[in-house]
């Protein structure tokens, strides 16, 4: 890799020109040019590359060593690891996010249980899928009990608005539809407990890390700074306004983060909860035949850069840690 | 009926002129006046490019963009009609149809039963000597054979007026003579009005009641010659040869 260039892949379409995104500390870092500023003294340029194909496309780019870092969700990374991608997870970025179930406004579907036999949109291969599957499982259903249609974010919204489907599992983009009176959110998975949330992270290619440990440290530190800014309740409105540059209105972010402390959602920590979630995603993926051999998260996380950043920024005690079951560690 | 010449079913051209648009050259046809009685056999001879084919196209109704008037059978010619047939100078066979199908093209809209059509086609393929070639496609035919298919197509539906544009141009003397004879026979028995464009003055003399000599630039009628020789006429006949020589001498030797 070109030492004068850092390439960060983002598993989202991105929006605008140049594209930006929202909803995570990494997004804050991009919008605030924190990584660029941190690397400026060494004349290292930063390139943010957005993938419409989301996590899977990011995996292809990683396989070809076309990017050095990636912001990605849990399932796609597990798929990559299962297929032999050599990466290290550096820090969490956007955790404990849920999925929502939305239906047309006049629908008589009241909850997940009513989905039996219905046409339901799910964006497969992303970290939305497993959560949706687990939600179904908790309600005694599987994908086979519904008529599942693979819909990406845009298609899911259009399908819902046109009543082409009976329901969709999707993310915060549903709030806008709800405000427009085109959809009704009948279920939020985060209400069902932390095992029904999805996580995301920043990762680095092993090869790159070996050769450019210093750069990795700088990037991690910059993102941790962004995480701290994003976790400060004083910044709540400024944060949503910042993320709104990506095209998702502040109201949607408000709804997405309502009743949740920003610290919980924007924590970069690699705590037992996070590790346990990734292992359970890997186990679920195997059970659902999404991968062919078991994946272990042992040795996948590389917390030393994060620890160093926390130390240098004096943030060791800033974010609460959670145990495997999601309970705060005293 | 077949023997009575009905004047009102004849062909009349009055002051017919034709000019191709965008052309500042002299008109291709200028004030053509000509009356052809029903059942008459008229030949048109004239230099290459003098407008013979153009004239036939107008009569056939293929080109309505002219000045003057053309009447046939008491009605104004405005478009084509099954009662007026034409054999084109280039054969214009459909490349995707075989010999038999190409002849049958003329009968698609004829009021005949399927069997009658098939029989008529068979007869006419034989008439032009192409038995055995029914399944050949145009690219498998010689030049003369293709021309004969076109003749069969022109004859098979028995129009009341048949326009023939150098139909025998590509034929050897023998085939030509045979087809001339057949044409004559059909003309006599069915009293079809025939207008034949030919560059063979002898052929014109042999077959026609009248010969129209056209002149070029602009295309116009130079002379109309009545052929009063008794029928049946034959190629060797002295009268035929004499009239031919006269016409050739008078009209086709200016430049030599």
């Amino acid at each position: 890799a070109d030492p004068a260039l850092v390439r960060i892949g983002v598993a989202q379409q991105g929006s605008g020109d140049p594209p930006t995104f929202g909803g995570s500390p990494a997004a804050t870092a991009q919008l605030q040019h924190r990584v660029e500023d941190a690397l400026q003294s060494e004349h290292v340029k930063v390139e943010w590359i957005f993938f419409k194909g989301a996590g899977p496309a990011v995996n292809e780019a990683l396989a070809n060593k076309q990017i050095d870092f990636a912001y990605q969700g849990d399932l796609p990374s597990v798929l990559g690891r299962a297929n032999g991608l050599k990466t290290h997870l550096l820090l969490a970025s956007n955790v404990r996010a849920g999925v929502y179930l939305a239906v047309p406004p006049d629908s008589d579907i009241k909850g997940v249980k009513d989905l039996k036999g219905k046409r339901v949109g799910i964006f497969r291969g992303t970290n939305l899928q497993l959560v949706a599957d687990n939600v179904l499982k908790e309600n005694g259903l599987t994908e086979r009990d519904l008529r599942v249609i693979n819909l990406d974010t845009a298609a899911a919204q259009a399908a819902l608005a046109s009543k082409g489907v009976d329901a969709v599992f999707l993310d915060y983009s549903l709030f806008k539809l709800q405000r427009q009176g085109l959809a009704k959110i009948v279920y939020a998975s985060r209400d069902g407990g932390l095992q029904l949330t999805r996580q995301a992270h920043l990762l680095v290619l092993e090869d790159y890390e070996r050769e450019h440990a210093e750069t990795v440290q700088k990037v991690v530190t910059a993102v941790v700074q962004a995480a701290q800014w994003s976790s400060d309740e004083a910044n709540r409105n400024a944060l949503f306004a910042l993320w709104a540059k990506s095209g998702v209105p502040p109201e949607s972010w408000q709804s997405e983060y309502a009743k949740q402390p920003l610290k919980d959602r924007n924590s970069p920590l690699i705590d037992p909860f996070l590790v346990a979630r990734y292992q359970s995603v890997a186990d679920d993926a195997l059970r659902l035949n999404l991968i062919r051999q078991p994946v272990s998260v042992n040795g996948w996380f590389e917390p030393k850069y994060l620890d160093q950043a926390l130390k240098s920024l004096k943030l060791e005690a800033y974010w609460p840690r959670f145990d495997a079951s999601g309970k705060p560690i005293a | 009926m077949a023997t009575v010449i009905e004047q009102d079913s004849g062909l009349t051209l009055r002051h017919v002129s034709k000019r191709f648009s965008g052309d500042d050259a002299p008109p291709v046809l200028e004030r053509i006046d000509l009356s052809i009685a029903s059942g008459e056999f008229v030949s048109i001879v004239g230099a290459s490019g003098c407008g013979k084919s153009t004239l036939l196209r107008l009569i056939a109704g293929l080109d309505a963009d002219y000045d003057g008037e053309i009447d046939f059978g008491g009605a104004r010619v405005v478009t084509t009609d099954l009662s007026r047939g034409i054999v084109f100078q280039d054969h214009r066979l459909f490349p995707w149809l075989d010999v038999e199908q190409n002849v049958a093209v003329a009968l698609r809209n004829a009021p005949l039963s399927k069997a009658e059509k098939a029989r008529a086609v068979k007869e006419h393929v034989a008439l032009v000597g192409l038995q055995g070639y029914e399944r050949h496609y145009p690219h498998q035919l010689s030049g003369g054979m293709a021309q004969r298919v076109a003749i069969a197509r022109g004859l098979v539906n028995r129009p009341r007026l048949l326009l023939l544009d150098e139909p025998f141009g590509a034929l050897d003397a023998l085939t030509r003579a045979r087809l001339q004879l057949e044409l004559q026979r059909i003309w006599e028995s069915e009293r079809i009005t025939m207008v034949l464009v030919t560059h063979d003055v002898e052929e014109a003399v042999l077959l026609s009641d009248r010969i129209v000599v056209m002149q070029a630039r602009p295309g116009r009628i130079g002379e109309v010659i009545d052929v009063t020789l008794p029928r049946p006429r034959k190629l060797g006949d002295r009268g035929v040869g004499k009239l031919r020589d006269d016409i050739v001498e008078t009209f086709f030797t200016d430049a030599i």
Partner: protein
Amino acid sequence: MLLPANRTSKRAGSFVTHDVLRGIGWTALPWLLPVACAVLWVLGARYGWISPQVLPPPALVFETLGALAKNGELWMHLSASMTRAAVGFGGGVLLGVLLGGLLGLSRTLEAYVLPSFNAIVQVPVLGWLPFLMIVVGIGEPLKFLLIGHAALVPVTLSTLQGFRGTPRGLQEVASVYRYTRWQVITRVTLPSAIPVIGTGVRLAFTKAWLTLVVVELVASSEGLGYLIVYGRQLFQLDLVLAAVLIVGAIGYVADRLLNALERKLQRGRAN
């Protein structure tokens, strides 16, 4: 016929063995390229020229293919795709011939419609999706519509070209024999336009097949395109390639069939 082949006369060099060798070479020729590609692929996989995550080794692809065939999934996806392709492509071709024919026959209609047609066809499938999903939902009709739209364009344009290219001389023959408008169209214009339309139809098939994949990508739960997309989303490129092989194979067979049909339709023509 092609360019001057510089053939020598028949009996020159009629050594039997030579001819036989040539015959074998001729038969083997079409396999040269695919075999070369396959060899490159095997070598590339073995020596790691390309990451195996992106270009999995052939053995794995065929293994996946076998597994798909065995558990019956393959047939389900296959029949779903074939149905969509057949309906969409068939409809698109019919409408395309109709529309192209109408435009070819009437300059007036062309003046009204062609500019809009030209503008509309410039909007891609992905552009229409948001609308069409609203208008027709995301069921099969949506797929038929989009695949049909993809097939429509080349067929319309080549039919238009073919109709315009009909030799005037032949149309005049039809006119002399008082062919009705319908007869002229079916007996003269259409047959003479067949070669051009044929090219359009084959291209339409290609486009329809491509669109199938895109449509199945966006909204579906079965079909070969879905299989490709699903494989990609699961980062199992062997699944993708297995599906690609099937898509290619079917496309090839269909293309040959269309070709044979076209040849049958223009039997008798010199070339």
